[in-house]
């Protein structure tokens, strides 16, 4: 008898928890670890909640995993920074429409000892060629993330065939930006990072910015609503409100206001003419 009572209590608890998760007033946003690690969400989400009462639950994974989560219908909105992968997602019919939200830039981080002899500059291609030639230690995300895609594109732009050039000096760790920076710090290696994560990263060791300001280091963020026709469980109404807010003047200002040590991390660039 007692055991039966405990069972039904447990079942009720589980159902309540499940029901709580399925409330109207909350959405799941699949985003990237670099966006989370930068602290942006801690800044802008309370503002959105105050305005609309909608709880935004951010699941932070790599871009590849975030898009996969959205494909499975486990997220309502996806907010990542890999335009090629995002366009493919749209073409597959999983997204409704893509909007630019903000950009930041990548920076090449390197040890002060500078084994590749790059110095400080603004030519990313030359720097990468130097690293590959001198086989200086380099940490790669290796995880299909936005940053990883950008890194591969940059090797391409620099004219280095990274698939054949890579060796023990090129370390693919398959983890997030924070882990990559930790590894680079421990090994005194070069690593490509987004500026936001770098600015809020505390375990710098001997690392500092080696290359910045190159136009090719531009990193665009996009947001999409997961297509409710593919997954009827998507909370389309609340999800769209979040997207609308992000690209509205109010949301854009919130993004631009986020600073670490007085430095702005993300630059809002949503297109203001929408039909």
């Amino acid at each position, binding site marked *: 008898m007692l*055991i039966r009572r*405990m*069972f039904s209590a*447990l079942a009720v*608890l*589980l159902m309540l*928890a*499940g029901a*709580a*998760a*399925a409330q109207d007033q909350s959405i*799941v946003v699949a985003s990237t*670890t670099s966006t*989370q*690690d930068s602290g942006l*969400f*801690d800044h802008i989400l309370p503002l959105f909640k105050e305005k609309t009462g909608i709880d935004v*639950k*951010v*699941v*932070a994974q790599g871009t590849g995993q975030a898009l996969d989560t959205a*494909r*499975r*219908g*486990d997220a309502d909105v996806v907010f990542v920074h890999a335009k090629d992968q995002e366009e493919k997602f749209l073409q597959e019919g999983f997204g409704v429409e893509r909007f630019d939200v903000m950009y930041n830039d990548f920076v090449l981080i390197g040890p002060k000892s500078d084994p590749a002899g790059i110095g400080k500059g603004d030519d990313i291609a030359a720097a990468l060629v130097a690293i590959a030639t001198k086989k200086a230690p380099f940490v790669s995300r290796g995880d299909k993330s936005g940053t990883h895609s950008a890194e591969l594109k940059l090797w391409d732009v620099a004219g280095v065939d990274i698939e054949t050039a890579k060796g023990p000096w090129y370390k693919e760790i398959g*983890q*997030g*930006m*924070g*882990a990559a*920076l*930790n590894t680079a*710090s421990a090994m005194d290696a070069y690593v490509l990072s987004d500026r936001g994560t770098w600015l*809020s*990263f*505390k*375990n*710098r060791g001997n690392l500092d910015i080696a290359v910045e300001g190159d136009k090719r280091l531009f990193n665009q963020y996009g947001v999409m609503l997961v297509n409710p026709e593919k*997954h009827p*469980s998507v909370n389309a109404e609340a999800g769209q409100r979040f997207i609308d807010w992000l690209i509205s003047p109010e949301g854009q200002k919130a993004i631009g206001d986020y600073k670490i040590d007085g430095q702005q991390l993300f630059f809002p660039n949503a297109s203001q003419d929408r039909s």
Partner: protein
Amino acid sequence: MCKGVAAMSETLSAWQLITSGDATLFSIVRLSLAVSLTASAIAVIVGLPLGALLALTRFPGRWVIIVILNGFMGLPPVVVGLTVYLLLSRSGPLGELGLLFTPSAMVIAQSLLVLPIIAALTRQTIEDLWLEYREELTAIGVGPIGRIATLLWDGRFSLVTALLAGFGRAAAEVGTVMIVGGNIDGFTRTMTTTIALETSKGNLPLAMGLGVILIALILMVNAAAWGVRFWSERRAG
């Protein structure tokens, strides 16, 4: 020299955050305990009778089940997490329940992790006890359900140790809850996922401080269980 001082002051401010009763920290601790304790409770409710049944019955292929059960004590948490994730995903068979990325999913996944530990250790304890009690209980004429109840109660001290092993596993793991919970701020963030997050952000002193708290929590649970056992042993031998 300066770096050492800086590191120390960071550790100190981390500790201050911890000891000042920070609200976020409190809710993270509460969630960790709620998830792991609930998962352990479920594992006990299912695992105790299962283990006892396995100890007392004989059927063809019994040894296969025992080997599998013992082996599952070492199930990799990430694999369990991934499996439960695929089950609970909207595209998966149980997607209708909408349980992914909620504390319920974390409880379910951790229960699966802890269940083999409880069942396997219970089976071993009860089987050993049965050797000792068999003749007496048969002579008294105790039926099958009575045997399970009697042995479970008489073996309660060893079973508490099994329970603590199970709870320890749940409280200490990060792979399962990270995958099925999503480490959502204020909702599915536990102590272990927070430690992983802070580490990846480079906040190593804070991460370490949280780690110390987690260990202290687990020790407190063990101490409480020890106290109960000690007091109860004095009463019943």
